[in-house]
């Protein structure tokens, strides 16, 4: 009887203070934005995520609403319409939005990365015109670095700008561009003709959608991330005014990489949301589904597996939030930290979602259940914003080129 009481009490206690609650450890401000983003994800996104996946178009109506919420330029200066949030608060928001739809949340994160590039490196004129529109999602942004022949080796890009007076003439192509065809502003990294070789010769230009000579390839058919179109861009003698340049000559690669540090934290945050929602769903399922006369939650294998997955989620969340804070404080270690966060969180959260899917058995494989979509959507997080192999390279290089802590 006593044991029975303890067990019942234990079960009751488990119902509050859920250790996976994403609000744990956050201050009041971050909790407030979490609540707002959660409400938005629950009402505006989650009920439609399967439909968006099927349709393969950006949900413009919901993006407009996200703009009204202040999700378009989250960590941009308030002076131009940004929301003035910290990187940690933005990470908390991306995590919540991705529970509602990973693909749409990830696009929102890319758009935010573009807005931040303008806010940080753009001229006053560009900030004044682009950020207010981007903050409201009246105009969408796309980040364009990868080319058909230049992926991980990003400095080997071949798209070229030739300066002619007050404009550049751009030729070349970009591949795997998220939002392509729908976005209005394209932030394109390219080589400056006659500039320095390699990374130091790269510039960043903002090219608007309807510029002459700028065309789009077919919409790629993808495993996941279907609510956003992906296309190849082609530039043939595209004239771009010099005033559309973001940052100085030779700074393009730096801008692209700095943008990516944040992009990595954001994408990792999107993996967290998928993992959290999948685990929540799996826990509900384990308690409900009965086999051999007992619920799946009563099988110790499932309890142990659940514990392992939950630990993966929490360690991922901790490293992502630590990286977001280092980014906010502009710590010198931030590059390695963001890379570690992206590597750890996107790999582990994929395992969490995959494990949760396994707990659902055959049902997990059905498109009637959301877990398979979370799985398909976050798979690409291990590839983009720098592959997880490149993250290892970055971390390894960092470790071997810095002064170690305790020299012998």
């Amino acid at each position, binding site marked *: 009887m006593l044991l029975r009481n303890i067990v019942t009490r234990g079960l009751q206690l488990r*119902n*509050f203070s859920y250790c996976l609650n994403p609000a744990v450890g956050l201050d009041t401000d971050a909790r407030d934005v979490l609540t*707002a983003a959660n*409400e938005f994800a629950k009402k505006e996104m989650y009920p439609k995520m399967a439909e968006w996946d099927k349709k393969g178009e950006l949900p413009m109506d919901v993006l407009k609403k996200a703009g009204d919420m*202040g999700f378009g330029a989250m960590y941009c200066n*308030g002076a131009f319409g940004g929301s003035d949030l910290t990187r940690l608060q933005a990470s908390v928001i991306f995590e919540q939005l991705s529970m509602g739809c990973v693909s749409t949340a990830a696009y929102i994160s890319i758009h935010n990365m573009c807005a931040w590039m303008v806010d940080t490196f753009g001229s006053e004129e560009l900030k004044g015109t682009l950020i207010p529109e981007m903050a409201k999602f009246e105009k969408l942004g796309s980040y364009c670095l990868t080319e058909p022949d230049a992926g991980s080796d990003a400095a080997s890009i071949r798209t070229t700008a030739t300066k002619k007076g007050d404009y550049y003439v751009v030729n070349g192509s970009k591949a795997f561009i998220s939002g392509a065809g729908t976005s209005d502003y394209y932030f394109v990294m390219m080589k400056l003709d006659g500039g320095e070789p390699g990374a130091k010769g790269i510039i960043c230009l903002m090219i608007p959608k309807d510029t002459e000579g700028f065309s789009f390839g077919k919409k790629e058919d993808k495993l996941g991330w279907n609510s956003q179109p992906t296309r190849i861009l082609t530039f043939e003698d595209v004239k771009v005014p010099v005033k559309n340049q973001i940052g100085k000559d030779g700074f393009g690669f730096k801008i692209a990489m700095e943008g990516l540090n944040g992009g990595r934290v954001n994408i990792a945050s999107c993996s967290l949301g998928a993992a959290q929602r999948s685990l929540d769903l799996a826990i509900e399922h384990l308690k409900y589904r009965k086999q051999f006369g007992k619920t799946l939650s009563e099988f110790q294998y499932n309890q142990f597996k659940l514990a392992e997955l939950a630990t993966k989620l929490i360690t991922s969340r901790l490293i992502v939030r630590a990286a977001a804070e280092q980014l906010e404080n502009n710590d010198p270690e931030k590059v390695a930290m963001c890379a570690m966060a992206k590597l750890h969180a996107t790999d582990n959260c994929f395992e969490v979602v995959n494990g949760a899917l396994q707990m659902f058995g055959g049902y997990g494989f059905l498109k009637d259940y959301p877990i398979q979509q979370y799985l398909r959507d976050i798979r690409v997080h291990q590839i983009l914003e720098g592959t997880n192999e490149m993250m290892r390279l970055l971390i390894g290089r960092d470790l071997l080129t810095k002064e170690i802590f305790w020299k012998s």
Partner: protein
Amino acid sequence: MKILVGVKRVVDYAVKIRVKPDRSGVVTEGVQHSMNPFDEIALEEAVKLKEKKIATEVIAFSLGGPKSSEVLRTALAKGADKAIHVQVSDDEAAKLESFHVAKALQKIVEHEKFDAVFLGKQAIDDDSSQTAPMLAGLLDWPQALYASKVEDGGSGHMKVTREIDGGLDTIKVKVPFVLSADLRLNEPRYATLPNIMKAKKKPLKAIPIKDLGIDITPQTETIEVTEPPVRQAGGFVEDVSALVAKLKEKGFVKA
């Protein structure tokens, strides 16, 4: 028109309610809380009236423990101009009754001169539905309860529509008045990031309950709180005549 809006911190509607092991009440510790959904509707209506320039100022009010400031911050983020937190301890808050809340609202209204008090038609925790009519009685103001539509009624009046069993009941109330909001009055807005940030700069006044000079001694005593009975499993009968016999035995059909 200056509107006071009552907002209560309650256990979130999505939470599965659990009874405390000692049966003294429900578990509230570590449980997700939020603003009472009907209060959210009342607040939205007040903010809408302000946007239509019918109201001039919207002030949120909450009587409760330290964490009630959370729902007041939400109210500020959703459009209230100021907030008043009448403070009690968590233990006192657990024993508050509608009458105490109505008394506290009365004191605030008399002290700060309001033209209307908007409340939710009920709180989703205790489901009392009494605060609004009690307050109207205490203030000797007209009441418009269970409002589903609120319009300007002209010459110092408001026109309020209420959903009743037979259809719609439209009434004209003289300002000042007390209103309680029904579910279909409006759809509350989201707290946007800029408004969450702006809310931090809006004034939130804390008033200890003793400063209002109200007696909050409970008038009722909770003897026991229990879970609803678990539904019993049914049984099988051999054939129709056995079923009819069972029904007769249980008294569901006349013998």
